[in-house]
């Protein structure tokens, strides 16, 4: 119904693919969301030295493991991009599924951490630190899920040689998810 009346537009004044231009601006707006959140946390953290005690209860080993998992999953996203550029679509799809698997491992570890912390009696309503902890990691987790969905969707398409440019865009989004975690991990876990 909708498709039949949509004007298809293919042009580029800058020489860049329009999807890439759009993706960069979209990522910039995502950076603004987490940037505001991270700055708020830092301002509160500086005003509350006692928060270092709460940060002791976060599981550093789990966080470090998750950091490695996310960085590795970004590597497979990059390899998928390279494979798609060589027109090896089946290989690109498999590599994207590997990235999705990395996201899944990340979420499982995060779920273990949450249950551990809640078991210890730390919930989002305990105090401001735990409020920030659950809010920031929760919002990041939501982005992990969105990223995984995008990667999985692109993986099913690219296997048949469709939506090839999507490998790049989903990968860009995944790198953003990755980079945000690189900020959250030291702020919430290590700064004690």
């Amino acid at each position, binding site marked *: *119904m*909708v*498709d*039949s*009346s*949509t*004007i*298809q*537009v*293919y*042009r*580029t*004044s*800058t*020489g*860049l693919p*329009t999807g890439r*231009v*759009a993706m960069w*601006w*979209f990522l*910039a*707006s*995502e*950076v*603004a*969301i*987490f*940037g*505001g*959140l991270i*700055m*708020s946390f830092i*301002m*509160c953290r500086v*005003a*509350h030295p006692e928060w270092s005690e709460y940060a002791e209860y976060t599981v550093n080993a789990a966080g470090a493991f998750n950091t490695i998992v996310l960085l590795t999953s970004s590597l497979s996203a990059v390899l998928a991009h390279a494979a798609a550029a060589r027109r090896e679509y089946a290989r690109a799809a498999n590599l994207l599924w590997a990235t999705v698997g990395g996201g899944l491992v990340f979420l499982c570890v995060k779920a273990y951490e949450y249950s551990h912390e809640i078991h210890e009696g730390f919930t*989002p*309503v305990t*105090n*401001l630190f735990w*409020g*920030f902890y659950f*809010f920031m990691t929760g*919002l990041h987790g939501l982005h992990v899920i969105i990223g995984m969905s995008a990667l999985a969707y692109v993986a099913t398409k690219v296997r048949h040689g469709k939506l090839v440019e999507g490998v790049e865009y989903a990968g860009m989004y995944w790198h953003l998810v990755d980079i945000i975690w690189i900020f959250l991990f030291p702020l919430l876990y290590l700064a004690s």
Partner: protein
Amino acid sequence: MSAHHEESFWSKYVFSTDHKVIAKQYMITGLFMALAGGAAAGAIRAQLAAVEPGGTGGLLDPQFYNSVVTLHGTIMVFWVAMPVLVAGFGNLLIPLMVGAEDMAFPRLNMASYWVFFASTVVLLLSMLVPGGGAAGGWTSYPPLSADPAYSGVNWGITLWILAVALEFIAFLMGGVNFITTAINMRAPGMSMWDLPIFVWEELAASVVFMLSVGPLIAGALMLLADHQFGTHFFDPKMGGDPVLFQHLFWFFGHPEVYVILFPAFGIAAEIITSHSRKTLYGYRMVVWSIIATSLLSFIVWAHHQFVAGIDPRLATPFSITTILISVPVAVSMFSFIATLYGGSIRFTSAMLFAIGFFACFLLGGVTGIINGAAAADIYIHDSYYVVAHFHYTLYPLVFMAGSAGIYHWYPKMFGRHLDERLGKVHFWGTMVFFNLVFLPQFNLGMMGHHRRIAVPTEFDFLSTPTALLMQDISSWAMAGLLLVQVPFIYNFFASMARGEKAAANPWRATTLEWACPSPPPHGNFAEPPVCFRGPYVYSPPDRQADFVPQDQPPEGDYQLPQNPIVAPSAAK
């Protein structure tokens, strides 16, 4: 290239991906919401006119009055200014002005409107839930908005946050489209320095919006968590920080003022050039002033918080940046006024509204410098002086520049002209009554009238005959202001069927939207246009012609501009 295919009613007028239909949807939704916001304004003025000396009288329950004030501010900023100025005119004009068939992402564009429509429904429904609508002001400062014990509102504020969040999502989708269309969809030969000022202004508005709204999205989600899940981000009793929300709000809230200002300036720039037959004075200076305003708009926000308990050492830097931002804005204003100088001015309704916009906005801008100085702000903060100030900026931006734009581009939208006589009634009525509404409010503010009190006469100094007279003038003028919008509403709808038929280029203007028929078909241009020169070539000294459109080939031999552009194709 027009698309030859059958379209059902639903895909043509409702779930359309055509940027012009989406523009009309945004604009008409925005104008409908302006009626709701105007009704709320009428209720506010009626209440303030009906109070008796000694703190008695009044028509509205104070709790309901708070809801009405909140609703008025929220609607006028987010559901009128944004959809009409940014989304309505932006959708209509960006693809036409850059010579494109449609937006870069037509389906994303359609999704943007329908998310916006959902947000409109949620906002209107929020007034009907138990406890009433949000009553914490359009800024929704906690703890007023975070704790139902203070405002008596529970579900109202939750729905309010949801509506605002949906609205932001809609404009983020729109913003991506506007930016990519403006920078990547330009016609062959059209460099960034050939873009009409309106496209530059919309580009700046979209960039500023997308880069400033993030912290408030985070803040709104945190407020929602405080409200529904019992976290304590903004609750001072539990170690939270209410000023943090103010920072997150105004980091977006102040750039938002410029998000609204930019399209209004763009509309005015297009109108004054074509209706005075003059080249825009200092095109590049105007572009640089837009860029400078955009950058400075990110570092002025704390001037809203001089009395909120921020570190006093912050006050001076934010005063300086606030006063500094008036410099690039003034550069734009002076360029526009210099454009008029020596022009062959035609006082059409569009031109009258554009000039009226400059005159009224100037007063809003100048009083802003007074508010921006921390020492002066401590006295006038949260008073009717501030109310008068920002209405002197926003009313001209939204309703005067917005009306100017509607009179100017209505022929392009509907293929017919608005009635000029009714337009002049609309303009002069608006001009007189607008000033009568808000000039007395500067004085009331200096007398100590607080922004959001339902019964100001509780205070002796607001029960004096002078104060009551000013309240009455303001309220009666408000009735007049609402009344003179009636001819406009009639004109808007009646002219769709009965207005004088418009030619493709009725104003003899140069920009590309006038190169296609009025109204343009789906796909806009019969032939993809090619751009040979900058906008605003009016009365060129070396030519006979009164104006030279951007797509008119030069005389003599020429080469077609080469851009890396793939030939556009119509729908499958």
